[in-house]
């Protein structure tokens, strides 16, 4: 998993912050390692020496935001790297090799919004492309015509939320599709007729919260499902009860619990996927 170490760092650090324990890490060490992942193009790789990509660039920015150290960056440089990846039709490529996916639209928009540089891209076209990926069931896929998937839905809803364009979403139609992800066990799946998985507790849940339809699921049942996925001996959370734990599912489980107002957890913002106090610090001052 070395290739996505910087994503792992973001998952781990954000989880710590939600648990109120961010001070447990050495800020200096983390930040200098993050900066060592930056490529000469301005983008960030998954690890030192790896090629840059939007996915890793967002994690870098998010980590710096956690520590209130976004000014460590050469904002102009990073913003330019991101904006050059926008295509004619408004879509975004993940890197110079051209893979297009609405995940990258979200990453670009979220990154630039955190850097206060949204005007570096053509927001109208970016939104148009995302809307072209809207499906007849109200959900969104990776590219136009692709099947609705909770992960892609989170990305599209998040991007539309950040750009003030949620009026393109049929909230009732999508809300019903999303609430039907909750299965008998109380867990959430990512699409119809699939198994529940803790990571969907984030993607489905945050989407439901952004469009204000979260009351359409049984929140208590979902809390129980997530708690059942804990490894109470060794710590951490897994995708399903009794499976192996990892930092990915630990983050999504804890973030999901935060969205469900589980006591003792810091609130997390459903669109930017960072603690609410971090977001308020950036936008409300």
């Amino acid at each position: 998993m070395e290739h996505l170490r910087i994503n792992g760092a973001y998952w781990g650090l954000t989880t710590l912050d939600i648990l109120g324990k961010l001070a447990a890490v050495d800020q200096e060490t983390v930040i200098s390692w993050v900066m060592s992942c930056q490529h000469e193009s301005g983008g960030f790789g998954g690890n030192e020496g790896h090629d840059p990509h939007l996915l890793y660039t967002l994690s870098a920015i998010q980590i710096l935001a956690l520590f209130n150290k976004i000014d460590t960056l050469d904002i102009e440089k990073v913003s330019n790297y991101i904006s050059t990846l926008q295509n004619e039709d408004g879509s975004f490529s993940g890197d110079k090799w051209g893979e297009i996916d609405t995940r990258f639209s979200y990453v670009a928009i979220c990154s630039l919004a955190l850097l206060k540089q949204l005007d570096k891209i053509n927001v109208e076209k970016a939104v148009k492309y995302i809307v072209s990926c809207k499906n007849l069931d109200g959900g969104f896929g990776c590219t136009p015509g692709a099947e609705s998937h909770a992960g892609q839905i989170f990305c599209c809803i998040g991007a539309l939320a950040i750009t003030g364009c949620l009026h393109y979403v049929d909230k009732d139609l999508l809300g019903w599709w999303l609430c039907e992800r909750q299965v008998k066990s109380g867990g959430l799946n990512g699409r119809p007729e699939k198994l529940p998985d803790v990571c969907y507790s984030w993607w489905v849940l945050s989407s439901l919260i952004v469009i204000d339809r979260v009351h359409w699921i049984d929140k208590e049942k979902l809390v129980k499902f997530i708690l059942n996925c804990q490894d109470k001996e060794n710590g951490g959370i897994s995708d399903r009860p009794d499976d192996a734990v990892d930092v990915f599912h630990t983050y999504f489980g804890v973030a999901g619990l935060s969205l469900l107002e589980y006591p003792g957890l810091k609130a997390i913002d459903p669109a930017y996927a960072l603690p609410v106090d971090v977001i308020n610090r950036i936008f409300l001052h």
Partner: protein
Amino acid sequence: MHGRPRKSATPVDENASALKAAKIRSLQSQFLQNHHNNIYTKEAQEINAKLIESNPEFMTAWNYRKLAFEHNLSNQSEVDKEDADHIKLIIDEELRVVENALRKNFKSYGAWHHRKWVISKGNSSTERELRLLNLFQKQDTRNFHAWNYRRFIAGLKDISDEKELQFTTDMINDNFSNYSAWHNRSVLLSHLLEKKVEGYFPKEIFLKEEYELVRNAVFTDPDDQSGWFYHLWLLDQTIKVDMPNLVSSWPPNGSEITNTTFPIVLFFNEPVEGVNLQTVSVQVEDDIFKNIAWSPLSANKFKCGQAWLTHLTIPFGETNSSKIFQVKIRSEYSQGIISSNGVPCSQHWSIAFRVSVCHDFQPEGQSLRRILMTDENFSTVDINSNVMDLFKSYFELASDYEQPTSSKWKSEMIASEIDQYRELLSWAECKIGKLTLARLLMANDAIGTPVAPNTTHVEEVLKLYSELMELDPTHYQYYKDEYSLVFLKQVASSKESLMKYCRQYKESTSSNITGPMCLRLNSLSLSRIGSFERLLWVQSLDLSHNQLPSIEGLEALQLLSCLNLSHNKIGSFMALDPLRFLKSLRVLNISYNEIGAHTVDTRRYLCSSPLSHTLDYDKKFEEFAAGDEKVVNFWEAYSVFGGLDIMQLDVVGNVAADERFKLFLVKLLPALKWLDGEEVH
């Protein structure tokens, strides 16, 4: 990361995985060295191939392969460059590596993209790609990477939509539980419809067959969701009105009002853009007013809204006598009004009403009494009073808006579906089946006469939703919200049903603030409100003692001056954001709600806010708040209430409403006379 059983690591396990990790790390650092130094020797490419095999998600490794590929092509001898076979060898090698990687992990984004990248270079066989796809799609019929790649190949190799449609038919016949196949079907049919291909246009031609196909699926296994979602799409295709149109307005067509300054509200069937001087004209007597500005009643970036507002002031001059002004609102270039889906409005409409100005009018008197919405303060409405006139005109004359005509095939199709699913429910206790029947019944009523809403099936629908609340408690709130909406639709469907909920204020001196009538929808277990297009006339509204967490849509009720929301589930000030548009609001009761009690705000992105880039952060707030600027509640209250002239406010019973906050409110609202029942000095 997914689906691996939890087991404690034994020392043997840990040793083995440490060795493995060390091996991969060594490969990795060799690879990175090669990559950074642009080394593409056979050895280097082999190291890369090994790495990709162990981790097909390693993007940098795939990037290297593309560089190596280009290097291999450009490094050919002159002879080889002419030899098409040689190029093909290089391409085939790449495709082999991708196939190996996919066999290990058929969900690897990196692998699928690399294949696309290579195929895009040309020199590839369609047959080979389709064979590969068939292999993966058999292994996992829901593999969306494979479906996406299939669409890519169909596009690249010009495979017809009809051929692909047949493929989905085969997959569905093989196994009904294939949401991915149904989804692709809906995409292909939409394309064929859009291109007006014979056999698929107009839509009633294919809808009948599709309904039958779905029926086979859901009758075979009513508990599998796939078919039911597809049915919902078919139903939407059957009843939807394909373009935006005007549904209602304030003032209503044919009415007479007496205010010289008043709001004009245009309410459409869906959010639209482009309402402006060019598309809509406002004419008073013989003058077309040029200084009219329309704005959408919504918080979004690109000026799109379902309800649009402007204000009009009648210039009544110096005459001593009363005068009546004829006002006309008309669509001029209606195609400039466009839905958020890009469909222009092709309907022409016009609204005409009279403004009766009496020169010795009374200025709005300041009521010195506190307005209380308790039962003792109301009486039933005297149907002979002139209070009823405006109310009557709204309902009797609303019919003048031209509505798209409903077609016979629609009602026949829906009636047939209703029969079919009633039959299914007689032998299968199936929640989505019940929900589908409720939706079919509502659709049936909706396509009836659009003007006088058909409420034939409302009782049966309400019963179905009640049953669903018990049958599927996990989704209880969804059914509750639907129930509330249907209930309100019934209430607002006729003046008779509305009259049951209207009350007159006993205290007549307050009526210049409250209006003569109050719509009392309190204590009805409402969890959601709707039917705003039929409530644009409301000045005084009692929604207390319900279960409302949101008042979305209320912004259309521009005449609202008295609003009671006490004892509901309002969770934040952002949930009250629609109030920022209600400039006539004077009396507001939000006591006994949940403001300040939640760490999560579900209205955060559905309102005007700097987070969604729909509002600039007002730096003046920091000065104004003087010490309290860090408290988010204060910012939100400042943002929502800042522009309002509220005279009477009740906030008690909310966690956020402490003494400090109440002082802040007094500072914020200069017109405030009463706060929580006490006079403000």
